[in-house]
């Protein structure tokens, strides 16, 4: 019962925020002093949200599983109907047409605490990130809360102990 409601809440969050991973734990110190290892970040990934310089995004490099939390420092965006833009803007005011400003965008990221940009982290030959690489945008955060995940990763014995305790709790609860 608890497990299914937890799962439902998690799935609900995924839908509401539009992100496949709406809550992530900061794994490195590359965004210090803003974020430290173990901080928890809340993300949204709305399709219409434009990516703009200065925003903190969480992305995954193609082929790697680890989410990286860094800041966008450069964007170059072209939209399909650029020359129609003035017309489309007035049209969007009248007919609620979706604004085509969100065209093809490529951007570069860098950790606040890093000297250089992230090109070294990207795939071989890749110089820019694209919208599809983004897991979400950081909208809010809580310090330290994510430490549990890191401890469980670094000390698997702790994870098994925790699972054993939870399992025992569930079994014992049933009996009463």
């Amino acid at each position, binding site marked *: 019962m608890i497990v299914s409601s937890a799962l439902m809440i998690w799935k609900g969050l995924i839908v509401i925020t539009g992100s496949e991973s709406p809550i992530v734990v900061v794994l490195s110190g590359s965004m210090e*002093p803003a974020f430290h290892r173990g901080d928890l970040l809340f993300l949204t990934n709305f399709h219409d949200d434009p990516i703009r310089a*200065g925003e903190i995004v969480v992305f995954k490099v193609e082929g790697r599983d680890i989410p990286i939390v860094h800041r966008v*420092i*450069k964007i170059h965006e072209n*939209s399909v109907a650029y020359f129609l833009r003035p017309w489309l803007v007035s049209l969007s005011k009248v007919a609620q047409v979706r604004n085509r400003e969100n065209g093809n965008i490529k951007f570069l990221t860098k950790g606040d605490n890093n000297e250089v940009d992230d090109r070294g982290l990207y795939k071989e030959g890749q110089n820019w990130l694209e919208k599809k690489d983004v897991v979400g945008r950081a909208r*809010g*955060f809580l310090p330290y809360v994510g430490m549990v995940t890191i401890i469980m990763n670094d000390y698997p014995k702790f994870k098994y102990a925790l699972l054993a305790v939870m399992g025992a709790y569930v079994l014992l609860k049933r009996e009463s």
Partner: protein
Amino acid sequence: LRKNVEDFTGPRERSDLGFVTFDITADILNGKNDLQSIFDWNVKQLFLYLSAEYATKNNALNQVVLWDKIMLRGDNPRLFLKDMKSKYFFFDDGNGLKGNRNVTLTLSWNVVPNAGILPLVTGSGHVSVPFPDTYETTKSY
């Protein structure tokens, strides 16, 4: 908050590289429009950055962060920066800087709380930097 700038451009391979120098002044006013007033009990730091925004033939929207600074709560909230060079290379994705009259510099900041929402605020006021039509070939920077 005010900025003044000068500019040159130089081509590197196929992309334009721009050089901008600027001043940033942020002083303590009466607690209304200064940086000090943003720091409250839940603000851990401000991440300030100067970004250049412009449009080119290739790309409808370009934004490049030229300079940034982390200001922690308790740091001096006044800025008196003069003749600063951009911290990062101002490369365009192509040759869109040459002759571009509409490059706008804006100062923005990310408020990092001790816990909670992370807002991005853009300062009111911006400076337009026109880039010249010609390249400077010999420039020691």
